[in-house]
């Protein structure tokens, strides 16, 4: 089932006469996102990743074209609340996403804005804190948490709105490896339970784990497909100055000794089985 539909989306931060000069941050983007997908959005700085993601919950409204979430156009201001309830956003810096002075209040912020009954809010707060494993932090002021805990808290506060889709704008790029893993695991678990996830990232290893990869360049969609497809198109990646996932680079290094299609080894599990297969067959490993 289609969750988000983007038709010929163009966006410019300019307005009036400057707009006619035609500097666009996004140009002619067409995308369809189905329920339950895990999508990684990659691209160099300034390629339009954040601009695209901010269109998904109506923070930005298309200059041309249309974005529809569950059939609701983001241009219709009366639908914004419902759209934002459906698509939850987590940004890069956890510091600037926490607006209250108590952990429970932070998680309750979204449901309170939705105008829910106090009992319903309490229930959702409990649930969101349990899912993100933040129960132990109840009653603490957010500014005393670690950066990783803060980002988990922002995830919890978005989850409390019970969204269908989670949009993560480089959400783990400011975290240390351990907290990055905690956030990633939480998101992965939610995805397994049916949550649609759209995450922009600079980490190709993260992108390699996604179900679908969208490559942006200069405000346009340069490539869109499964990771194995994207990471085999080396010329495009090189032109866009994007790295290859670690596993592909390792496979490249052993390429001369290992007769396998290294382009397809974008994923650690595939690489491991390829190496062990080759080893078992003997002979092929020189």
């Amino acid at each position, binding site marked *: 089932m289609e969750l988000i539909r983007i038709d010929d989306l163009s966006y410019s*931060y*300019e307005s009036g006469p*400057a707009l006619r000069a035609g*500097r*666009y*941050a996004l140009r002619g983007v067409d995308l369809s996102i189905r329920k339950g997908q895990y999508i990684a959005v990659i691209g160099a700085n*300034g390629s*339009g990743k*954040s*601009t695209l993601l901010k269109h998904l919950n109506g*923070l930005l409204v298309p200059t041309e074209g249309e974005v529809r979430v569950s059939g609701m156009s983001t241009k219709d201001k009366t639908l914004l609340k419902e759209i934002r309830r459906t698509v939850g956003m987590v940004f890069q810096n956890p510091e600037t996403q926490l607006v209250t002075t108590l952990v429970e209040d932070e998680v309750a912020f979204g449901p309170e804005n939705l105008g829910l009954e106090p009992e319903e809010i309490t229930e959702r707060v409990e649930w969101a804190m349990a899912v993100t494993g933040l129960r132990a932090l109840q009653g603490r002021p957010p500014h005393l948490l670690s950066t990783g805990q803060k980002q988990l808290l922002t995830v919890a506060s978005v989850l409390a709105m019970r969204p269908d889709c989670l949009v993560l704008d480089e959400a783990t790029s400011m975290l240390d490896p351990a907290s990055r893993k905690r956030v990633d695991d939480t998101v992965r678990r939610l995805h397994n339970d049916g949550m649609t996830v759209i995450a922009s990232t600079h980490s190709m290893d993260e992108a390699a784990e996604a179900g679908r990869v969208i490559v942006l360049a*200069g*405000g346009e969609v340069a490539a869109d497909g499964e990771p194995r497809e994207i990471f085999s198109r080396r010329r495009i990646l090189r032109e866009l100055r994007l790295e290859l996932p670690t596993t592909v680079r390792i496979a490249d290094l052993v390429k001369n000794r290992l007769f396998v299609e290294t382009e397809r080894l974008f994923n650690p599990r595939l690489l491991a089985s390829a190496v062990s297969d080759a080893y078992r067959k003997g002979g092929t490993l020189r």
Partner: protein
Amino acid sequence: MNEKVRKIVIAGVMGAISVFLGATHLGFIPWFAGAALTVMHVPVIIGAVLEGPVVGAVIGLIFGAFSLIQGAIAPTGPADVWFVNPLVSILPRLCIGPVAWLVFRAGKKLKEGQLFIISGFIGVAVNVFIWSLSQKLGGFESDAVMVFTVGVSCVAAVTVSCLLLFWQYKKSSELFPYAVSAIAGSMTNTALVLSSLGAYKFIPWQLIGTIALFNGLPEAVMAAILTVVVVATWSGIESKRKGSSV
């Protein structure tokens, strides 16, 4: 972006800067003879010119409430204790933002020459205000001396800072309204705080003219420069970022 949300957040953030400058004492610059200049009112002015009079008044309220609490809980000198009175700490600060915004609005519609004249008038108005208050409240001995010092201080503040800005920003006269509104906001603070101190007889009226001159003038100049630099850079960043293809 939703305008209301942005206004709320900018008011909160600027209020925090004002409190921060006061709590850390970063916002106090030691001046001569033990006096200190302050830039705590600059967030109020910046908030007002960016987001309007209500945001300015709210930031002023935070600024005022903080000086009240600081005066009561952790005063660092006798002067801090005066501010425990809300008529000294809160009321004058509520007026900074709206005045700065009004002047800014007027300034945007006018040409440079007119602005100079208007700012001169503001100087005179502030001066007359202090003078008439003091006439009424304190039987002070040398009217002429006080009128002279206060008058000179106000007019000098406006002219000096306009000249400074003119020298620094010859090409962009669109920044003048910001400068003049900052001066007006700063003078509002000086004039109202001092006259309330005078009305409560904390400071003899004879001294007030001198304080207005030696503190109010440099504070106004500082507020003007800081406001112009911050607002100019901020709008520059905004337009540049919007211009590039992010």
